[in-house]
């Protein structure tokens, strides 16, 4: 059984069914990309796994334990970390305080916190420069760095990233994705939602394509990258303009 195992998830907003039976799994060391157009249900999937939403039916298992109905903060304690859509940093706290909260569950281990903070600062030197700045006044991209850094503080077993490269300058976006690869190589399972499908597929091992709440395609990332349907819908874009 995989580390993270999602089976036949049905999620509703009111009467609207946003997820109509999603199943996916992820193993340690694996990056699993989730692709799909807007409104497909990618964010909803992640929010359900991390306990912010309750599914109507279906199961979510992490390391053999069910996550359904478990409070979000407990799920974090089980090693699942989620970089939410729209960053959701704590804007009245400064950069360092935000990172400290990322390590809330290991708050007693000062040494560990220090080390992890240093690692995050190594990844995003800009954050180190701005340690004392209120997070709300950071630029959009800086906030994104903080949101990612904050999630890394807990050294998760399962890392879920909702569009991590959003708002990042191209060079930085690439280096972030490279870091994601390294995190996976160190043994974490990564769920990666990305609009930047080309780059996501380049680093991912496995991929799922969601459309209107259903998985319509799944497979090896490299294979999917060559799949005609994926190319057309998620990679195509500007080339097709060129040929038209």
């Amino acid at each position: 059984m995989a580390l993270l195992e999602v089976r036949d998830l049905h999620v509703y907003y009111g009467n609207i069914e946003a997820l109509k039976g999603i199943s996916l799994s992820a193993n340690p060391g694996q990056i699993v990309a989730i692709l799909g157009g807007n409104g497909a249900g990618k964010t909803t999937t992640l929010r359900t796994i991390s306990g912010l939403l309750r599914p109507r039916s279906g199961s979510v298992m992490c390391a053999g334990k069910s996550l359904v109905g478990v409070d979000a903060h407990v799920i974090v304690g089980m090693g699942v970390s989620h970089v939410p859509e729209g960053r959701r940093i704590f804007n009245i706290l400064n950069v360092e305080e935000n990172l400290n909260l990322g390590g809330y569950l290991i708050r007693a281990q000062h040494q560990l916190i220090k080390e992890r903070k240093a690692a995050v600062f190594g990844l995003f030197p800009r954050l180190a420069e701005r340690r004392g700045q209120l997070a709300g006044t950071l630029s959009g991209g800086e906030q994104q760095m903080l949101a990612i850094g904050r999630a890394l503080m807990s050294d998760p077993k399962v890392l879920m990233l909702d569009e991590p490269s959003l708002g990042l300058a191209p060079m930085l976006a690439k280096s972030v994705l490279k870091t994601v690869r390294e995190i996976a190589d160190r043994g974490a399972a990564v769920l990666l939602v990305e609009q930047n499908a080309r780059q996501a597929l380049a680093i991912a091992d496995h991929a799922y394509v969601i459309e209107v709440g259903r998985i319509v395609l799944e497979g090896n990332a490299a294979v999917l990258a060559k799949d005609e349907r994926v190319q057309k819908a998620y990679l195509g874009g500007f080339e097709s303009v060129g040929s038209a």
Partner: protein
Amino acid sequence: MGDFLQYTVIGLTVGSFYALVALGYTIVYGIIRLINFAQGDLSMVGAFLGWTLLVSFGFEHLPIYLALVIAFVVPMIGTAVVNLGILQFAYKPLLRRSLLAILITALGMSLLLQNSAELIWGAAIEAYPPNLLPSSGFFVGPVHVTYVQIALVVASLLLMGGLVAFIQGTTIGTAMRALAVDHDAARLMGINVDAVIRIAFVLGAMLAAASGVMLGIYYVQIHFTMGFLLGLRAFTAAVLGGIGNIPGAMAGGMLIGLLEAYTTGYLSGTWEDVVVFGVLITVLIVKPTGLFGERVAERM
């Protein structure tokens, strides 16, 4: 000049009580954006619990230190339990629904506490043992300072210091401030939001209870309606300092205490409210987020 200093001493003493209650307002507000109108009445509950222990149970006859420890610690715990009960039954179901509804509920709880207190302890004015602490003092030049005043101010400063250390110095304190921004994001950090809110309510109630007992010792007389004015002053103090801001609440409390003492001393007690609110409005017009400002940081 002598008068002025004398008023200052009185103002600072009373101000430190206000500051304690104001801290309660500020902590709770900082977390769930609720102006907890029952805060002042929690003080009253604390004062009556202390009175019950000292007078009804006769603990005033114990050695003074023991008596004081009991008279502070037990009401603080008792009031914290009451506040937790209020949180659990009255506020929590409404937390994510409507801020106005919680506000009205808080006003209702204030009324409820007052009337329950009247039912339990009666409508009469009760008196703390007048000579619990030595009523003597000393003169600094023309100014008379009593030992009671010193003891009370020191005690409240200690309490405040402890609170500041907790909120500014621990990650739980940081988590409290984070809750003011985004509950869901806080959950994603592994923060048990409900537990943190409970901590805030416990702290708020303990400070309020302590200030209630202090008021009892200082003014001797207590009454079930005493919480209203206290709460009002404390709320004003919290806003004056910048609601949500801990040092602001302390400074605000002291300032209001001083203003009140000067007004009563130089003008007359009837104008107290006018002066206090007049200063508040002026300050807010000049500095819209209070003296110490609340940390606001928003980006587009």
